[in-house]
């Protein structure tokens, strides 16, 4: 019984971290699916979201609910601005050029945060207060449930949006073939801009939940979850919205299970080995579709 409880508790730990990965991975996958670029600055937008929430709530004393809306709006606008300045001029350049610019943006955001908010971590209490549930000996924290619910809602919402709205259809078309989409009268630039707005808004949501979970603000806080979520997105099949969710949760669970039952020292190695194994068995991730190239 104790063993079973232990396993259950570790599973919940995995879900707790995995749901955050999943939420970040959704943003990654969204941008990748449509704009076909790995947005390395995605993790740093999470950081911006977390700091923005802190500024609104603690410094400007805005009501938390309004602060959440403002934070999401702020990040969406920032996403659009970054896209306009740094990514758009490179739309016709090699794909890697945009990748490097994204890295530049990532450095830029981190160093801006460092200059403005300094290097010392800032404590910032959670604005989300949900009581935890206790079933038998197992306690499920309220925040984990909220994060899971938000991630699930976002996933369903995004799927519906992409498949059942006009904008969503244009996104699919742009993702399939930018040139053809243009010929069909789709405004490609606008579609990509909106994709970035949505991606950044998702990053803001992730930032809000992340900071509510861990309660400490650092200029580099987005880097590690960012890279883990990137792994999660690839694991699930990059470009696939349900894949991102599955990838995130699977990654979180593997991580906490290997920490609990194999080795905390080698946990990272195990996680990445699993990734390599999964990709060798299924080269385009768990839910990714294998694109067959026609000659």
């Amino acid at each position, binding site marked *: 019984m104790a063993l079973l409880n232990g396993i259950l508790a570790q599973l919940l*730990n995995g879900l707790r971290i995995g749901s955050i990965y999943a939420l970040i991975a959704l943003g990654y996958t969204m941008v990748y699916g449509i704009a076909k670029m790995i947005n390395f600055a995605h993790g740093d937008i999470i950081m911006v979201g977390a700091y923005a929430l802190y500024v609104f709530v603690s410094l400007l004393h805005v009501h938390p609910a309004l602060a959440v809306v403002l934070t999401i709006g702020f990040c969406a606008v920032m996403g659009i601005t970054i896209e306009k300045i740094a990514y758009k001029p490179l739309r016709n350049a090699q794909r890697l050029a945009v990748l490097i610019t994204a890295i530049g943006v990532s450095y830029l955001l981190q160093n801006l945060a460092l200059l403005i908010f300094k290097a010392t*971590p800032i*404590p910032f*209490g959670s604005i989300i207060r949900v009581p935890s549930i206790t079933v038998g000996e197992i306690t499920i924290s309220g925040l984990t449930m909220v994060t899971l619910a938000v991630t699930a809602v976002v996933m369903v919402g995004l799927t519906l949006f992409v498949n059942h709205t006009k904008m969503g259809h244009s996104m699919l078309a742009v993702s399939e073939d930018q040139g053809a989409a243009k010929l069909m009268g789709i405004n490609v630039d606008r579609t990509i801009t909106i994709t970035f707005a949505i991606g950044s808004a998702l990053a803001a949501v992730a930032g809000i939940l992340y900071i509510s979970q861990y309660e400490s603000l650092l200029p580099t806080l987005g880097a590690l979850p960012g890279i883990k979520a990137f792994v999660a997105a690839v694991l699930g099949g990059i470009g696939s919205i349900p894949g991102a969710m599955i990838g995130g949760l699977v990654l979180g669970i593997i991580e906490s299970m290997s920490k609990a039952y194999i080795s905390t020292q080698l946990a990272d190695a195990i996680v990445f080995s699993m990734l390599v194994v999964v990709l060798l068995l299924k080269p385009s991730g768990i839910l990714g579709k294998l694109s067959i190239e026609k000659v």
Partner: protein
Amino acid sequence: MKKVLKTAGIACTIAMLASSVASAADTFLIGGVGPLTGAAASYGVSVKQGAEIAIEEINAAGGVTVGDTTYELALQFEDDQASEDIAPQAYNAVMDAGANVIMGAVTSGACIAITAQTYADGILQVTPSGSAEACIENDNAFRICFSDPEQGVAMADYMTDTLGLTKIAVIYNTADEYSTGIREAFEAEVAEKGGEIVASEAFQTNDTDFNAQLTTINGTDAEAIYVPAYYQDATYITKQASDMGMSLPFFGSDGWDGVLGTVTDPATVEGCIFTSPFCASVDDEKTVAFVEAYKAAYDATPDQFAADGYDCVYTFKAAMEQAGSIESADLIAAMTEISVSGQTGDPITFDASGAPIKDVKFVTVKDGAYTFVE
């Protein structure tokens, strides 16, 4: 490329000339090396600010008189991003500026990356916080803080002998030299004293989720948890432990200093005990003066790194006065003869190996404030 190098060379020669002119006006330049950007930035910034407070105090009081010349102290602090790759460049940049002594590097790895060069240059190097044993291997290198093993052993003795704890769990950072260094010494000493390490759980730098490790420890019969790590990690660990409803007492290393500034609820660290030579809320005159000056200048409470930086500057002052010259060899020779009344120890003296001789103190959090354990 050739042209760029040449221009750079000329520019630097001019800079060197300019700095040598400056030192003619009796300036004693302290060359600082430490992280000002990157993940470890807060340590370097603290050291720099602590040192600046000391320099201001000393200069306001008329500088340092050596023989019949009075020197004004100055600090040039270069960013090494806590990286072994960049530290040599940072060190050489301060040497180009004509540094008389080296304060640094702030982190162990970066410090070790420059020790061979400082030794070859024969310059006095005092690291405020490089706690690895290899930092002070050479004769010209000294340190202000305790070494990693000293701390681990001191805490192990305290926990087993004084508190009578026998079953101890450890959480440490496997990617960090400071953390692994203390952990090794601690575990060996606990075993020596007949105690038992019931769990030894690792994490990686920048990890923020410790639930898996804490759940594992919760399943053992541990009586206490020892976390040799920095305050950011301690913040996450104590918070997540209290969320899980764990009530085991926490023990930490000197990296814990500053933890009260980063927790959202002081109750999560109430009662924890850590080794620290410095405690900002002690009300003796010297500490209060330092804390107030620091608050006025930087709007922050000084941590142990700031205190180390402060003491480092006073160590240089003492060495200059003792040596009666500012020649590197004389300064180095004077180091073992001086006694510094600092923030992190009073008195601090140095042995021939370069290690400081000062008391290990234990700090606890009581009613949301730091106090020394009596």
